[in-house]
């Protein structure tokens, strides 16, 4: 639960749920996030969940930090219904041109490329948060035998659709972007669609994700 609420600047509340990164703490963050989305408090302009923090921004013309803090404190988590988990199935192609770092990972981790992919595909992942760039999901936790730090020198351009891993996490580059994660494959799935007004992102915080492998032909078909 919330351990402390402080102000971040004069127009945001910073709710601290602890320092660890795990599904339990993050689920609490997301419960508050969903509650606030449903039960709107006048003046809130943005709610940003992350691993173990929730930042609530507001319009100073309407409300201030102390008043908002009181309202957050009054939220009764008992009344927050646990929702059914949504599972999103994401295709991944690991053909040579897409799995930019697979060989290097295999050398570094001293296991075969096939073992890395099998390990990656065998787990169901949890979406901790979405952001940095539009629609990018931060997923976890990948198996401890395929964890590695990010690249020492980040790439200037990571191709759109790239699926990267670092430490216990996995993400999907929804745009071509600079980045330093270890790229193991690419998905043709449109994770972010700006023309989908009500549901622009496929993977929301709290969702579960399963990856399934496709070949290059299937990739091209889905990419049409």
């Amino acid at each position, binding site marked *: 639960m919330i351990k402390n609420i402080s102000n971040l*600047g004069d127009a*945001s509340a910073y709710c601290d749920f602890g320092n660890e990164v795990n599904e339990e703490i993050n689920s609490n963050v997301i419960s508050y996030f969903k509650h606030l989305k449903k039960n709107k408090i006048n003046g809130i*302009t943005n*709610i*940003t969940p992350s691993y173990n923090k*929730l930042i609530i921004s507001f319009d*100073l013309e309407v409300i201030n930090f102390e008043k908002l803090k009181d309202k957050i404190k009054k939220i009764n988590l008992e009344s927050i219904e646990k929702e059914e988990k949504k599972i999103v199935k994401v295709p991944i192609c690991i053909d040579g041109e897409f799995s930019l770092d697979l060989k290097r990972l295999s050398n570094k981790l001293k296991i075969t490329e096939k073992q890395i992919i099998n390990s990656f595909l065998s787990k169901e992942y949890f979406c901790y948060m979405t952001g*940095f760039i539009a*629609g*990018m999901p931060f997923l976890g936790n990948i198996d401890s035998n395929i964890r590695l730090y990010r690249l020492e020198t980040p790439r200037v351009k990571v191709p759109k659709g790239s699926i990267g891993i670092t430490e216990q996490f996995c993400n999907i580059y929804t745009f071509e972007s600079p980045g330093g994660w270890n790229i193991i494959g690419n998905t043709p799935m449109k994770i972010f669609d700006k023309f989908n007004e009500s549901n622009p992102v496929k993977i929301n915080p709290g969702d579960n994700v399963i990856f399934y492998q496709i070949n290059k032909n299937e990739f091209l078909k889905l990419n049409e």
Partner: protein
Amino acid sequence: MSESYFEILRPGINSTLQDLGRSNMNHIGIPFSGAMDTRSYLISNQLVSNNLNEVSLEFAYQGPHLKLKYGKTLCSITGNVTFRIIRKNNDIEEGNCYQTFVLESDDQIDIISTNKSVYGYFSINGGFVGDNFWGSCSTNTRAKIGSNDGKKFSINEKILLKQNKSIFNNKKLDYLNSKIEYIRVLKGTNYNYFSDEAKKKFLENEFVVTKLTDRMGMRLEGPKIKNIVNTNIKSEGLIKGVIQVPADGNLIIMLSDHGTIGGYPKIGVVISADYDKLAQSTPGSKIKFKSISLLEAENLYKLYSLETQNILNQIK
């Protein structure tokens, strides 16, 4: 009647359509965006009798050179801007900011530069045609959303005008941008990650705005701010005005198009009342921070808001 538009003869450095920004999308990676200098933006709309959230053209440093095709429109430019109007008979008129003027078909406006500031605003009665995404037409070039397919304007493109209300009342405002002495800040959530010496440097030394500054962020150069706890935190949300310190000890301030999640410690946050002035700080200019209390920041915002309202009322 043919539809009215501006033909872009020169796009300028970073010309985009902006309004008051897009809320409630931070959680999927889409920041607020919107006009960088809110007050100048609001004044430009008020001068041409628009709704205050009407779409304006924001430009930075060198603005666009535009030619009106068809129609007639009441215009205003705000900020500290040098521009001229080239009439269709080739007469040239020096432009005055905070004073409306009328453009007719085949007249041109050449927005030459902003002076000792970064952003200026060009508004027209009725507004420009923008593309609404989640309640705002603001262009966000990073997420490629908003007006003009999420891109800044390029040469030979058109900027369409909405139907105007045929209001041609000229209005003028005597207005001087106030000079800043300090950028006032509140302590950040990781303030204690920094040594006493580093905190002292942060609040007592000057920092220079570098060229690595755009709508997403502002990088500063100055004394290195030494971290004594950890140069990384677990990634968490970001808001505009946050001052982050990466491992190299140089400050980065998040501006309106910022990434929504980041993992660098937050030493401070610029107060809402000083954001417009911060955004107008040009590369090479010096910034000095002053730490104040939350209550002071709230009162300064009330003052800022009241001042803005007074200025807008003067124009009516």
